[in-house]
């Protein structure tokens, strides 16, 4: 892993992040910290039923409560049009998005927003919620994907029909979409196989678990302009969604991103912003809404529960010749689960000639699912990586050996068709095989070691960066990517490297929709890759402008030296004659002429005025990321409780710009995977009420549940990026559930086919 290699001065070092002091002193302003003059506090009334028709809403009593300044329902919103809108990262149906922000005629999950109040205190607003009278016609809920797929299941959306293999049908069902990916001839493949394993798996609904609750502050001015302050992964995506839902031109919505207390994909869709906006317009004052933790669990965007079937066949020598999978994902109240991504990831670590993967997107009476770090991939890997492990066992092969034998490399074809560019999967398997952890035998009773691999695409999308050169030779970098994991540093480092100045001399600032060109979400493992790409290009733009200014300056100096002589015509200095390296500009035609970056900056006013580099990026060459993890566990045979003894995560990171934050992304993703594997799940009553909607009973890992998480940064530079960057943020969450399941099998002899592998579940398997 590169410390500051000879090749780079800044990239590979571990500087302190520029926003660090504010965050450790409590000065950093997160969305919930917003305070505006005359600001009101908003609260949302949420459905107590998982499935019901709204008959009537009476708000008079609530409006009469002293301190209440506005009460709103869907009537206060423009009618949402049933059409698709492109919101940068994703295309979204505006009607479905709006209906999730505020229920129209039906409530489709317990916690679905029905009305909202703005008052002079949050307590008064809460009291007012109790005075809003809503009459419901309660309908039977459907809560599990397999039940929802049945013909006789209650329908959430009467008008919705199934899209079957890309073709719209007129079959009314909770199945919104059935997709299929096919490669080769699976039936023939299975006929040739010597060993075939088939298993079914269930995973429970899981939440991103960010510690900061959703928040939004809105001021809809008398001149019709809407200002929004919020903790979000993408200010521009909030701007577009708010504009679509509220029927405003984008230019009339200004979104300022505050610091964000974690998102992991859960703070991309809007929930509160349009509600705060409409309350603000009605009350004529700014309104701040903050979700309670119960609202976070009941009414934001968890990752789908799923049922997955996997069948894989291999020859005696270990070559996998056929693979089939059927992924059934719960989309929640509205269609749009990440089952497609799950289908495309499930077998991606392997080059398999014959594959068929079917994906089902199924609505259920639960909150609409949203992205959660490599959305859809962890569920799928739990299934496929367990079956690969079983194949290895049946064939008497080491589980890493079968992965090495079948590992995908450049030119191999994914199930969705495209072939892989240069990728680093095999490098992760080799590194795992050679790692001291894997070489050290695991001894002691009730202990087991498991391995698993994972893939995620990563994305490029759009970013804009502006770099302003200051007279003292430092630079101010303006960007639109909200900084959740230290990306101010990783982006400034790439700009500094290209500018040839120290990292400390580049001051990055994150601004909102009025301050920079369109920038997509901080998500999809793209920020250091794509915004870093734009920062590099903007820095090149600065250097180019400096070369132009210097060429003019040096050429005019030539004018004096060759005062009217003939040779003057031959010696013209053009920008191409100016070279730049290690912070110094030199003149190819006159060794005596050179100036440092600082010199040029100091004389900008004399050399054509301010220098501002600008670049937008929508990079191609997005490098996918692979990981291979090793975990040792101990299982208490009396209680079924699983203890993580040791965890090593090997990942192809392309080039680690700031290694500490790359390690941090991997450690964070691994621990979210461990929580997913061991104790995290939504528990529902029969009536569709989530009974464990708190951090007490939605059990995320604490410091005491974990050892240190060892990381190995394999660097297979991505040719599609000037510094070889690959996205690193999402793939670490893909292998852990499967790796832990495989380790528990080695410790207990019982195959795990359900997540979470809670003590109760493991005990029930032990007592079988």
């Amino acid at each position, binding site marked *: 892993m590169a410390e500051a290699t000879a090749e780079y001065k800044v990239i590979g070092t571990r500087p302190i992040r520029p926003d660090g002091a504010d965050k450790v002193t409590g000065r950093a302003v997160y969305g919930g910290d917003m305070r505006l003059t005359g600001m009101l506090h908003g609260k949302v009334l949420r459905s107590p039923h998982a499935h019901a028709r709204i008959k009537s809403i009476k708000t008079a009593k609530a409006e009469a409560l002293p301190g209440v300044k506005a009460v709103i329902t869907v009537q206060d919103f423009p009618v949402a049009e049933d059409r698709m809108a492109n919101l940068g990262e994703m295309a979204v149906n505006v009607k479905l998005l709006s209906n999730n922000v505020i229920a129209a005629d039906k409530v489709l999950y317990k916690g679905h927003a029905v009305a909202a109040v703005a008052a002079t205190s949050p307590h008064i607003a809460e009291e007012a919620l109790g005075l809003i009278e809503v009459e419901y016609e309660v309908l039977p809920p459907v809560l599990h994907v397999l039940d929802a797929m049945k013909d006789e299941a209650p329908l959430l959306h009467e008008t919705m029909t199934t899209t079957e293999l890309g073709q719209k049908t007129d079959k009314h069902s909770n199945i919104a979409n059935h997709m299929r990916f096919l490669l080769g001839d699976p039936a023939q493949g299975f006929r040739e196989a010597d060993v075939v394993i088939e298993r079914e798996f269930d995973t429970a609904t899981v939440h991103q678990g960010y510690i*900061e609750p959703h928040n939004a502050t809105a001021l809809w001015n008398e001149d019709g302009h809407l200002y929004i302050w919020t903790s979000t992964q993408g200010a521009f995506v909030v701007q577009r969604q708010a504009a679509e839902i509220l029927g405003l031109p984008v230019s009339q919505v200004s979104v300022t991103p505050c610091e964000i207390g974690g998102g992991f994909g859960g703070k991309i869709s809007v929930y509160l912003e349009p509600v705060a906006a409409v309350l603000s317009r009605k009350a004529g004052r700014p309104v701040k809404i903050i979700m309670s933790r119960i609202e976070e669990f009941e009414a934001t965007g968890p990752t789908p529960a799923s049922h997955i079937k996997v069948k894989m066949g291999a020859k005696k020598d270990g070559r996998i010749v056929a693979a089939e999978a059927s992924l059934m994902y719960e989309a929640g109240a509205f269609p749009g689960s990440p089952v497609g991504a799950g289908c495309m990831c499930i077998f991606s670590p392997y080059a398999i000639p014959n594959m068929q993967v079917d994906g089902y997107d199924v609505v259920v009476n639960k909150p609409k699912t949203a992205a959660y770090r490599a959305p859809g991939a962890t569920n799928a890997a739990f299934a496929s990586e367990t079956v690969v492990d079983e194949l290895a066992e049946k064939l008497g092969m080491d589980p890493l050996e079968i992965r090495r034998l079948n590992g995908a490399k450049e030119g191999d074809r994914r199930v969705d068709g495209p072939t892989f560019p240069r990728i680093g999967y095999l490098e992760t398997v080799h590194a795992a095989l050679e790692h001291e952890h894997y070489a050290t035998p695991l001894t002691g009773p009730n202990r087991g070691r498991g391995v698993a691999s994972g893939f995620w695409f990563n994305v490029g999308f759009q970013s804009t960066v502006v770099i302003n050169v200051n007279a003292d030779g430092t630079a101010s970098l303006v960007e639109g990517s909200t900084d959740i994991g230290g990306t101010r540093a990783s982006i400034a480092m790439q700009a500094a490297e290209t500018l040839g100045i120290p990292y400390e001399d580049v001051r990055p600032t994150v601004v909102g929709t009025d301050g920079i060109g369109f920038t997509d979400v901080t998500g999809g493992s793209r920020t250091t890759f794509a915004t870093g790409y734009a920062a590099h290009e903007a820095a090149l733009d600065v250097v180019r402008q400096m070369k132009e200014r210097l060429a003019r300056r040096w050429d005019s100096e030539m004018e004096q030296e060759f005062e009217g002589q003939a040779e003057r015509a031959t010696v013209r200095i053009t920008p191409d004659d100016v070279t730049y390296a290690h912070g110094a500009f030199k003149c190819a035609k006159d060794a005596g002429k050179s100036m440092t970056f600082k010199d040029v900056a100091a004389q900008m006013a004399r050399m054509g005025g301010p220098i501002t580099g600008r670049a937008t990026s929508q990079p191609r060459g997005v490098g996918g990321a692979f990981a291979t993890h090793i975990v040792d566990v101990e299982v208490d045979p009396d209680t079924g409780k699983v203890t993580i003894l040791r965890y090593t995560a090997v990942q192809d990171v392309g080039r680690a710009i700031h290694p500490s934050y790359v390690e941090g992304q991997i450690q964070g*993703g691994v621990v979210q995977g461990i929580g997913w594997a061991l104790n995290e799940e939504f528990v529902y009553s029969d009536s569709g009420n989530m009974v464990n909607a708190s*951090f007490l009973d939605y059990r995320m890992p604490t410091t005491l549940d974990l050892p240190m998480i060892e990381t190995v940064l394999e660097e297979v530079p991505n040719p599609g990026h000037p510094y070889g960057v690959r996205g690193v943020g999402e793939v670490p969450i893909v292998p852990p559930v499967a790796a832990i399941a495989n380790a528990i099998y080695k410790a207990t002899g019982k195959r795990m086919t359900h997540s979470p592998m809670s003590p109760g579940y493991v005990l029930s398997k032990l007592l079988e």
Partner: protein
Amino acid sequence: MPKIHVQTRINGEDIDFLCESRQSLLEVLREELGLTGTKEGCSNGNCGACSVLLDGVLVDSCLVLAVETAGREVSTIEGLATPSQLHPLQQKFLEHAALQCGICTPGFIMAAKALLAKNPKPTEHQVRYWLAGNLCRCTGYDKIVRAVLDAAAVMEKA
């Protein structure tokens, strides 16, 4: 609902405020006194993001009624650094990249401060046991524990 006049000390300064008896110390710190460094994560004592010291004892400020602080000493993240220098814990959290989004950081630093006051040379296990009341979702805790151990070593020498 008549407001109660409360006189207390926050970060070494005499402070008085008006509040309703139903307002938590967390709510008063953030919404009335503008001390927004103490963060809200769950408001029912399960995440530690709102940790402060009450008479030197580590507590969740969401589970303390503001009226209860009358005549007592409250210490929050805003009181930790000196005008010229960050506290060693703050410095080590930055050096170890022991924070990513940073929302849990004030709570962790106040908890670690209480730990080191009680146990200046904790083992890794003792650090993990003490900090189990503070949830973090970004870091996986590894670098947080290392930052606290490193700060302990530095403070031990000082």
